[in-house]
């Protein structure tokens, strides 16, 4: 399933389109950046409330398929610019990580 298809199924808002046609192969929930970077797998959809520039760097380095900002957490302007520059897809939802991860689990 691509990030674009995931966006439709989970009714996510697109904040930065980035590489939206990339394949999603799994999911990871977490807000501590070092923890996430050491454990998220390439191709994961990352559910977090961290919308800062360092989260974008972590997503790139851990090779996540996309970031989903849960509970309408905000994306900083710096982070938005960096995501656009680096082709990182950033999505958002009003739902929490638990609900979204459940839905992801049902779709992949």
């Amino acid at each position, binding site marked *: 399933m691509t990030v674009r298809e995931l966006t439709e199924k989970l009714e996510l808002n697109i904040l930065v389109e980035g590489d939206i046609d990339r394949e999603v192969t799994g999911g990871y929930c977490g807000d501590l950046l070092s923890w996430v970077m050491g454990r998220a797998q390439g191709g994961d959809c990352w559910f977090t409330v961290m919308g*800062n520039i360092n989260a974008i*760097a972590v997503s790139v380095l851990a090779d996540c398929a996309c970031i989903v900002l849960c509970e309408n957490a905000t994306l900083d302007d710096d982070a938005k610019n960096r995501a656009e520059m680096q082709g990182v897809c950033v999505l958002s939802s009003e739902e929490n990580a638990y609900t979204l991860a459940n839905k992801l689990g049902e779709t992949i």
Partner: protein
Amino acid sequence: MNNFKLHFTVPGDDFTRAGEASGSVKKTLKDLGFNPEIIRKVVIALYEAEINLVIHAGGGEIDVEISPESISMVLTDQGPGIPDVALAMKEGYSTAPDNVRSLGFGAGMGLPNIKKYTDEMKIDSTVGVGTTMYLKVITS
């Protein structure tokens, strides 16, 4: 392939630029055709070390040497030094201030992550003088 050498200067206390060195090394390794798992190990370790330079040391220097057999990284700073390296290596131990924690860092995972993702790791640190960290990821 000839050995590749890269050098970066990391400014202190500037979180907007943290990750530039790791991102650049990632791109170089990708362009050179390294295995994605090797690239992941290198960039995770390097990003953690780079963030440490920003948070704790007021910046520093990074030298990376890439050969077909290994990727070696040396990070040097003139920061406060690490009084107890063994304690700093413990998962969950952190001296990061609150403003850094609010950014999502300071979980005490930095040095343990670096150790986990490298094949060799050595820290020389003197309080009041600075720290040099030697890292190596073997490619085969």
